[in-house]
């Protein structure tokens, strides 16, 4: 299983929210981050869905990797297999929510299929392997990264809502200004570094 790094899972949890935030320091999951962040309400909806899927897929992928792929020597297939697992997991989660947690499904319903192709989800599965996290570390890494992504998109959406009425030069309107905001937010998040050390 390789030797897991000697970092407290709790530190990994906090670090993945703040210092090594999936969006703001790794720039993963940008497509939905940019396009679904014009309204705070929808953005938090997507944030919650990402959190949910992230936790499930990291756990399933971790177990699959260590108990199936490594013993069979299929390590090199991990990109492919992780993607397939993510796609299947999302579908099953969606059906499960539709049946048993109807209210939650109403809120997340349209976002779940979108998440299958969110690179943050694949990224986190690959990171946990590269960094050879233990199971507990992986779980908290998943929860932390999900919360971090949610925090980032919620903050961005709040900012965009605030400035929705402002007049911008035509070339800057839409995605362009969103990228600039994201950059400034990323700079602000750099301020957290030094508080927790990971990697």
């Amino acid at each position, binding site marked *: 299983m390789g030797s897991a790094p000697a970092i407290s899972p709790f530190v990994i949890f906090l670090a993945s929210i703040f210092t090594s935030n999936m969006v703001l320091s790794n720039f993963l999951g940008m497509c939905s981050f940019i396009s679904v962040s014009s309204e705070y309400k*929808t953005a938090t*909806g997507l944030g919650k869905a990402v959190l949910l899927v992230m936790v499930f897929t990291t756990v399933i992928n971790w177990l699959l990797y260590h108990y*199936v792929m490594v013993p*069979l020597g*299929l390590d090199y*297939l991990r990109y*492919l*297999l992780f993607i*397939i*697992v993510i796609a*299947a997991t999302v*579908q*099953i989660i969606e*059906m*499960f929510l*539709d*049946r048993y947690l*109807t*209210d939650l499904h*109403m809120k997340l*319903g*349209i976002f779940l299929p979108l998440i299958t192709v969110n690179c943050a989800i694949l990224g986190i599965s690959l990171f946990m392997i590269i960094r050879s996290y233990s199971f507990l570390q992986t779980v908290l890494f998943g929860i932390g990264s999900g919360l971090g992504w949610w925090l980032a998109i919620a903050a961005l959406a709040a900012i965009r809502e605030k400035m929705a009425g402002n007049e911008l030069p035509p070339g800057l309107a839409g995605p362009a200004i969103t990228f600039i905001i994201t950059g400034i937010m990323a700079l602000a998040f750099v301020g957290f570094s030094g508080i927790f050390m990971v990697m």
Partner: protein
Amino acid sequence: MTVLFTVLSLSVLATVLAGLVSLADFRLNNYGVCTIDINDGSRRFEVKGGSSLLSTLASQKVFIPSACGGKATCGLCKVTMLESVGPILPTEEPYISEKEREAGVRLACQVKVKQDLKIKIPEELFNIKQYRTRVAEIVQLTHDIKQFRFELLEPKTIDFKAGQYIQIDSKPYDKVREAVSRAYSISSVPSEKNIVELIIRLVPGGICTTFMHEHVSEGDEITFAGPFGDFYLRDGADELIFIAGGSGLAPIRSLVLDILEKNLDKKMKFFFGAVRRRDLYYVDFFQELERKYSNFEYIPALSGAAPEDEWEGETGLITDVVARHVPDGVNRQAYLCGSPGMINACVNVLTKIGFDRSAIFFDEF
């Protein structure tokens, strides 16, 4: 060896996952038999749950109007739920007003049948049937507009109000593997009960218009459902202003012919907007009507006439032409059919002239 092993293990894993998904689908998406009660017991169906209300009703031969085929983009398939089935979805929000929301209105394509349902739909929807037809004649009207004449095979007659539309089911062709259903206004008169005529413009990349233009020939069998829509003649005005562009001529033709046939005491002005002369059609037909009936006036207008068009009629945007010919909104109604852009512009101009919003009727596409 490695290759073989890779392929094999990938397939095994994919199969396991696919199995899990279908198992989940079978276990979780299985809602057993549900009862749908329409209009307080006027109809009752026992159906298999798990699909959308729209398609479930269609399988029971109750056709709710839907122009987009269940993608929540047209907002037409409204039904009233008499017992709540949960909060309205974000996909429905743009189409349902505050008032409708309180009344329990939902889009049938977004409601999944999971339990017994009690719903209310307008009685006249029961008049909607699925028709098996044969294409009797295809006429090329302009470079991108064709007229289709359908002979009804089963049922043999249709009852509709002039201005209403039907929905054609396309069949898969070439690389398009899905069958879609799209709405087209009827251009023939209601008194011809055995035939239906449609005017269809070829939309580049349009699934159903491409199907109709390039993959349907005379003699083919086509099915459609109808009639739908609330774009028909209302009481309360002596003069009617019709404005159309492109294939929007279809319902207007039906309305005008119906009114003339019934000898209704109405003055009519029909404005038809096109860009070039080659976009005009049915010109002789309407000019003939103009000569025959003193209460009908036909005003075609070109917005981009070139010298070689040798055009002596009205020019300019259709909104300007209308403003020149219509003094005010007193005792007048307006019926518009065309692109959303044209309709918006016309509604603006008409309200400026003095038309009340409730005296303007339109059919957007």
